[in-house]
């Protein structure tokens, strides 16, 4: 409702008015008065535009602007549009008003339309999408290559290993992630154990709860759960950090000081996650098993000691190694994806949020894909029967 947005100025100054005086020869004179400023015009915009549209052919109309108290560029633009973007032949206006109109005419001359939209815009969209994916893959391979070069360089000069950065990342993405992974792991353990127990009891196969929990959590659920949590927690933080460093030109500053960004920023993150993820997997798996144990004890009355004794007998230790290996690989995947997207951030807020989102989504998808590959490749290893 335009009236509600009434500017205060309109309340105590004369409102814009349009008076039509019909003349004998079929023509008319339009007399404008009052405040033709944006604030005063807003509440009456529709009325005035309609009034200016309902008039005889332009050649018979004369416009009188001399009674206008103040006119700003918004008011002048409104008139200009009503005139069909040219000064009317019959116009009385003050020199200042003519000045405003001539500025508008100048701006009009400069205004060019962009190239017309083609019918094949969609085809171009598809092509752009394909090129985008290709560029992502190329950049990712380039990043991997540079990390391998850095690794080779560091083997020759171990003094330059960025230890402080690595351990800072270990602390941030590992130690600080322990509470949340423990909480989630414990709850998942309880839920999984509870639901399985309900089914197993029907068959009198209570003891198999140990097999199900042991195999499911150690081999599959623990690593994937941790990877998803770390991708959301540390992966997004890494992307945002690198992105902001790009926005504030910190990365360029590093480069001019001769510090390799891959060596100082990317490599520590990848190494830190490769180191902490297996440990987090171990930690979360243990907590999840404890949760499962508690639930199994309450639901099926299976003692803690019995659970402990049975676990190594029914779950071969190879499963633990598979779980830890998955953690190692997932850690590298999450960190690489996070850094890849972080380095692609362009200096604006939109790009930062888009890349952080992509980073988390792609990292989780990649983890699930890699997990499937693991499942196929290790199908003959560590199965109890």
């Amino acid at each position, binding site marked *: 409702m*335009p009236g*509600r*947005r*009434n*500017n*205060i*100025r309109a309340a105590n100054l004369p409102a814009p008015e349009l008076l039509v005086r019909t003349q004998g020869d079929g023509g008319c004179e339009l007399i404008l008065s009052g405040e033709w*400023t*944006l*604030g005063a015009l*807003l509440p009456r*915009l529709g009325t005035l535009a309609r009034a200016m549209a309902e008039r005889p052919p332009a050649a018979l109309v004369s416009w009188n602007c001399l009674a206008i108290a103040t006119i*700003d*560029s*918004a008011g002048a*633009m*409104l008139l*200009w*549009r009503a005139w069909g973007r040219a000064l009317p032949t019959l116009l009385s206006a003050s020199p200042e008003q003519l000045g405003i109109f001539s*500025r*508008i005419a*100048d*701006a*009009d001359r*400069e*205004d*060019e339309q*962009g190239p017309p939209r083609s019918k094949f815009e969609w085809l171009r969209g598809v092509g752009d999408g394909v090129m985008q994916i290709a560029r992502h893959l190329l950049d990712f391979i380039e990043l991997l290559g540079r990390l391998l070069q850095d690794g080779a360089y560091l083997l020759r000069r171990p003094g330059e290993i960025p230890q402080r950065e690595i351990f800072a990342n270990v602390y941030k993405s590992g130690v600080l992630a322990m509470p949340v992974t423990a909480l989630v792991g414990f709850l998942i353990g309880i839920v999984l154990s509870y639901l399985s127990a309900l089914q197993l009891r029907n068959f009198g196969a209570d003891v198999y709860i140990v097999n199900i929990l042991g195999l499911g959590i150690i081999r599959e659920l623990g690593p994937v759960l941790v990877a998803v949590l770390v991708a959301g927690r540390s992966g997004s933080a890494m992307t945002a950090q690198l992105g902001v460093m790009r926005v504030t030109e910190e990365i360029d500053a590093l480069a001019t000081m001769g510090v390799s960004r891959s060596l100082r920023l990317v490599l520590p993150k990848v190494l830190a996650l490769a180191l902490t993820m297996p440990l987090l997997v171990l930690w979360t798996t243990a907590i999840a098993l404890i949760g499962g144990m508690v639930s199994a004890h309450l639901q099926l009355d299976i003692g803690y000691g019995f659970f402990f004794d049975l676990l190594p007998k029914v779950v071969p230790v190879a499963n633990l190694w598979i779980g830890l290996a998955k953690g190692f690989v997932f850690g590298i995947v999450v960190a690489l994806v996070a850094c890849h997207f972080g380095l692609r951030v*362009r*200096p*604006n*807020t*939109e790009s930062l949020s888009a890349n952080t989102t992509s980073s988390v989504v792609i990292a989780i998808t990649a983890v699930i894909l890699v997990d499937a590959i693991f499942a196929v490749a290790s199908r003959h290893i560590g199965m109890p029967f």
Partner: protein
Amino acid sequence: MNIVAIHDLSTRLGDVWVHRDVNLEIMRGDVLALVGGSGSGKTALLHQMIGLLAPDQGEIRVFGEPLYGGGRAREVALRRRFGVLFQHGALFSAFNVFDNIAFPLRELRVLDAGLIHDLVMLKLAMVELLPRHARLMPAELSGGMIKRVALARALALEPELLLLDEPTAGLDPDRSDSFVQLIRALREELDLTVLLVSHDLDTVAALATRVAVLAEQRILAVGSMAEVMRVDHPFIRNFFFSERARRALEHTDLADPAPA
């Protein structure tokens, strides 16, 4: 008629009193320059004038009205009557130049797209940019262009009062000069009242009709440049009579009047 009236304003940031009993008036048609050392609270005072920071004590009236209270509609209507040019432009980085300038016009929710397009193009021409610049993103603009686009956005709603925070900071002397010229031309053309916060004596000397010096938590002096320069105070001596200042003032008739 005074456009801004600051009455006995005191500001506390944390435990520190930044201002105590500040009094200042900006009259219609003034170009008032607010100068002061770093940390003297120039920006805090500006933020209070545009309603980003509520004063701890005292009162600020803009266009004769208080900034706060009286309902949301009134507060919004009052804020639409002044335009602010932020130090770093504060362009919305997700919008291109056109959408940045169109944003305040669209927020009125009354104007149709054609009129908004024409008005944006007019503002672009007013700040001496070309129509093809409208499609650029803020990240693609040079420092001088960012200031011009930000100025066009500040002028979008035809304000009566324009507040400039360090308008020439970060510009090279050439661009700084041409930006000052542009502001001066627009001020005359649009009949604006201007408040200018600046460190740069060149800018102050070129634009200001009156100068207010903020130091020691209060306004030390207000008046024309020559009047303010007659006040004997270490800050004023340092600001207006240093070697650098002398060079800046060489081209004006203010150079070298001995302090009283």
